């Protein structure tokens, strides 16, 4: 009888039967591609920041003179830096593509009462991106 009462106490709280509350694992983002993609997208911001820092370092070394610039170039040629920057570049591209694709969700543009299709919002982003990249490539290659 006492055992039965104890079991009932465990099964019930004051107002309702005991609910099972599942715990969220620390690794919830592993194993499901959409979640992993989200975490990688968030992680990509670190590489965006990294790229900005590199750019600032490059400008600072140009400002300090030819010797500093040569030193900066040597630093960038280090295989470890090349490896980090290749990974960084892939992350920055991933960052750009995922955010461009999300633009139509966040922005609603209506023309004459009709919602403009998503491709009309993300498309110009891609066109501008490619155009600016082409100009930069032309400046570097010429």
């Amino acid at each position: 009888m006492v055992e039965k009462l104890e079991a009932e106490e465990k099964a019930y709280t004051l107002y309702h039967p005991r609910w099972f509350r599942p715990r969220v694992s620390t690794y919830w983002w592993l194993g499901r591609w959409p979640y992993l993609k989200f975490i990688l997208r968030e992680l990509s911001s670190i590489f965006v920041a990294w790229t900005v820092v590199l750019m600032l370092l490059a400008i600072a070394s140009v400002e300090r003179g030819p010797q500093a610039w040569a030193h900066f170039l040597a630093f960038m040629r280090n295989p470890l830096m090349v490896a980090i920057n290749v990974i960084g570049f892939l992350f920055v591209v991933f960052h750009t593509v995922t955010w461009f694709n999300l633009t139509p969700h966040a922005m609603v543009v209506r023309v004459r009462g009709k919602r403009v299709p998503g491709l009309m919002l993300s498309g110009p982003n891609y066109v501008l991106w490619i155009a600016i990249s082409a100009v930069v490539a032309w400046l570097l290659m010429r």
Partner: protein
Amino acid sequence: MAETVVLQITRYSPERDAEPQFESFEVPFHKEWVVLDALNYIKDRIDGSLSYRWSCRMGICGSCGMMVNGEPKLTCATFLSSYAAKRKPIVVEPLRYFPVIRDLVTEMTDFMVKLRKVKPWLIRKEPPPAQGEFLQTPEQLDVYKQFSMCINCTLCYAACPVYGLDPVFVGPAAIALAQRYNLDSRDQGADDRLSILAHPEGVWGCTFVGECTRVCPKHVDPAGAIQQYKLVTALEWFKSYLWPRGTGKNSEASGAD
């Protein structure tokens, strides 16, 4: 013998179990059967104690949401044939992130409280038209119609890791429904909803995982509603600096920081 399919179903009885366990059931396979048909077969023929919610079986009532092979699904719209080809058991669990009452039944009070908080009804500051009904053009209807399709099935909450990790987050469906009324030409209650929505646990809790939109059976796009509202609150916050004494509307938009 007819073809069969195995369902692995979460069983939990608060009186009997410390935590949920899986139980396997073999049911006949018919290509026109949905997961809910298989559950009804089990309850009618194999084990009457199996508990789950369902009502309309046509994707309107929003009661039969469960995790099917780890994905939030309306079981009335999820065909066995989509999974049978894999020859593996179909795993059916209660919706993720909600407390479980019994077997596949989740406790939804948290969602109901949040839904009420965003005041999902028409709020009028001025009296309604003295004669006849409110008039609305097709364009005015089109602005909010997508968000009005929500059936409160809470699949989006089960897809949202932010809600799982931070249960005070108002969540996708409640915010989408708040937007449904904010964007309605008849409504004048956007100011009343602002303090809940512009709160750090409102739209700013969202990190735009986007899974709520992907799993929504009614194509409501709650993630879109949240991002669009972030833009609104950011503008209101900015305006509150330009006109510190308020423009007469939305003057309490300080949650954007």
